[in-house]
């Protein structure tokens, strides 16, 4: 799975993207976030408050209970501030 980070999520984690091998028990966005937080203190810090993290799965906004699978592209980012 490819995971992308944008804006301050990217700055805090220190990566703009990474490719991860999902364990079998990760099948939702919420479980993915739990698992990513375990990758290190910067991941844990950046992703600790899910109320300020938005999620897109394959370039579509997704909720915490949305399914994720190995071939997906998942992006994590703050609320948008364009326009």
């Amino acid at each position, binding site marked *: 799975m490819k995971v992308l980070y944008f804006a301050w999520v990217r700055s805090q984690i220190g990566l703009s993207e990474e490719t991860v091998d999902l364990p079998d028990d990760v099948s939702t966005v919420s479980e993915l976030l739990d698992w990513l937080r375990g990758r290190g203190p910067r991941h844990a810090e950046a992703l600790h408050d899910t109320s300020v993290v938005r999620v897109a799965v394959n*370039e579509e906004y997704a909720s915490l209970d949305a399914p994720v699978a190995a071939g997906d592209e998942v*992006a994590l980012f703050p609320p*948008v*501030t*364009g*326009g």
Partner: protein
Amino acid sequence: MIRVQREDFDVAAETASIVGSDHGIGAVVTFIGLVRDISGGESISNMTLEHYPGMTEKMLERIESEAMSRWPLSASLIVHRYGHLEPGDGIVLVITASPHREAAFEASEFLVDWLKTKAPFWKRETTPAGAKWVAARDSDDAAAARWTGEI
């Protein structure tokens, strides 16, 4: 039509191209978003606009299609920039053209409200105290909530 680009936009050329020779158009509404030199009381010397290539274009196309389906628009255009920008620079251009003004105005407000809350762009502003990511405004969510229904 939508475009995501680093370069500046030429409002006159874009307007002429959108209107073309369609003499059924009676109203053109143009929204230009500009970089301000102040934000939340702090002075801004420049900003960087980050986006999510791929998803951005997909979202803009969908938002524009939704506007075209809700209002009788003759044509529309969204141009959104990314990258390094300075105060006075254009960030976003939205043009809506319609036989009558009501549709052009409403569609323009709809598009700008959705851009502010759904298009994956993030502003990082440079202030005297350093650079920082801009926080989302609750008022933008409230504005977008006027347009019922998800897209």
